[in-house]
């Protein structure tokens, strides 16, 4: 997985979206979305349920046609050059898209074969190790916990080193420990230079992971900036003395122990 990102890399920003519109019958989900994501950036698309985040991701990953507007991924137009776009991206959808009847290893080998890579078995073993799934590798994916399924899902998305990765609500439905595992995986991805567009409705997730954050509201991007930039939108911080109660999450980890990384054998039970 240390290969440089896929060849045929275009010029300019990794993701460029202009005036994107999409309606489902009467419902105008997207009313002119503009976005630009620099290469190597982790970009969070923040919005409440039904804000249209998934619609954006589906259009960018060539699963849905926009009514109006243009979108270019890695320099390729999603409508006119869909095949090139698909060669540049990887999609991790809202639900872990793994084949439950196959083992974790077979899932990885399958994707490596479909991407026409050499040594699918070696790639699979490497990813199993990287995502702490080696011991579970030969078990059917249906037997995995939610966090393990998600890790396998993300591992499948990394095969072939696509320069742009979409993560649609990657931690929805996960327990706090699994969520931190996924965050760790995303951080490693970003360190490797991959451009990541992630959608989330959890503010803390955007805060943890993203270089830049855009808020999608009523079909438009209402604000887009770095976290610090967004903070400056509010009046300057006032100093107050507040008795700091531990958050439930802090209590949870204090009781469960560790930094959220449960030993592998523990989790697989």
């Amino acid at each position, binding site marked *: 997985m240390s290969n440089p990102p896929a060849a045929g890399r275009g010029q300019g920003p990794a993701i460029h979206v202009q005036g994107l519109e999409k309606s489902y019958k009467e419902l105008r989900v997207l009313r002119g979305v503009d976005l630009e994501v620099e290469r190597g950036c982790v970009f969070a698309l923040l919005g409440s349920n039904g804000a249209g985040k998934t619609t954006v991701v589906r259009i960018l990953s*060539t699963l849905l046609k926009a009514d109006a507007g243009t979108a270019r991924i890695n320099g390729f137009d999603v409508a006119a050059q869909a095949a090139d776009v698909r060669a540049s991206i990887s999609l991790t*959808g809202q639900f872990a898209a793994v084949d439950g009847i196959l083992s974790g290893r077979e899932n990885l080998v399958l994707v490596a074969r479909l991407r026409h890579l050499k040594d699918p078995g070696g790639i699979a073993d490497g990813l199993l190790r990287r995502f702490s799934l080696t011991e579970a590798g030969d078990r059917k994916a249906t037997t995995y916990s939610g966090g393990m399924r998600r890790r396998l899902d993300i591992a499948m998305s990394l095969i072939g080193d696509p320069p742009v990765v979409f993560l649609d609500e990657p931690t929805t439905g996960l327990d706090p420990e699994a969520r931190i595992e996924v965050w760790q995986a995303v951080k490693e991805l970003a360190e490797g230079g991959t451009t990541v567009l992630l959608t989330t409705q959890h503010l803390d997730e955007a805060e943890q992971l993203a270089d830049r954050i855009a808020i999608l509201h009523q079909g438009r991007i209402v604000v887009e900036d770095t976290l610090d930039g967004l903070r400056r939108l509010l009046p300057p911080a006032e100093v107050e003395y507040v008795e700091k109660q531990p958050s439930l999450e802090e209590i949870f980890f204090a009781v469960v122990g560790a930094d959220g990384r449960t030993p592998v054998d523990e989790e697989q039970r």
Partner: protein
Amino acid sequence: MTAHFLGDTAVLTGRTLRHVTRSLDTLITTAVTPIAIMLLFVYVFGGAIRTGTASYVDYMLPGILLITIASGISYTAFRLFTDMQSGIFERFQSMPIARSGVLWAHVLTSLAANAVSVAAVIGVALLMGFRSGAGAGAWLAVTGILVLFTLALTWIAVIPGLTAKSVDGAGAFSYPLVFLPFISSAFVPTGTMPGPVRAFARHQPVTSIVDTIRALLAQRPVGGGLWTALAWCAGILVVAYVLAGITYRRRIS
């Protein structure tokens, strides 16, 4: 991407075939119902049915084979439905692969799974006294008709597989298909049926297909019925294929 069509389809077919081999119960379930019907008709009703042939099991086997295929394809719809639900279908569609290979993999798997079920049913029929002196050519023709019939029904199955909202919905379409042979010449000659029923039975696809297979296995001349049977299979195949294509493009643009 078309250069990869064969390779990608082979890889994807390997995946769906594993789904079949890892749930052998689906093959057994597919074969059990037709075998039960065969036992019932041969050993309970058969004695009272006058077909004009020496052996009733020889007479009704073609219809049983069609029932086997009609119930087998509901698992194709089920497997496709599961792919849609789990999101793996969208994962494949967002990858740089030959996109239609995903559907073809399900279709080829359907052919393989139904071939196993049909062979199992023929095996039981042999135990029950089914005999045919048909030569290799006739068997090849029977195989060809059954493959065409399976392809036609499989492309029908693709439609609910892509659109169903629930598992039950994905499988429900096959019930009328399983039932169709009962209102045909599959179990009794159509001559004894009352007028409107007889008219329906004589002109629906199953009768011509069953009559053709029966004639081939009994080494009788097939006559013009062969062309009617082939026309039905090819016609259903083309219509189902086109409709499945439209459904597919609506689901995934």
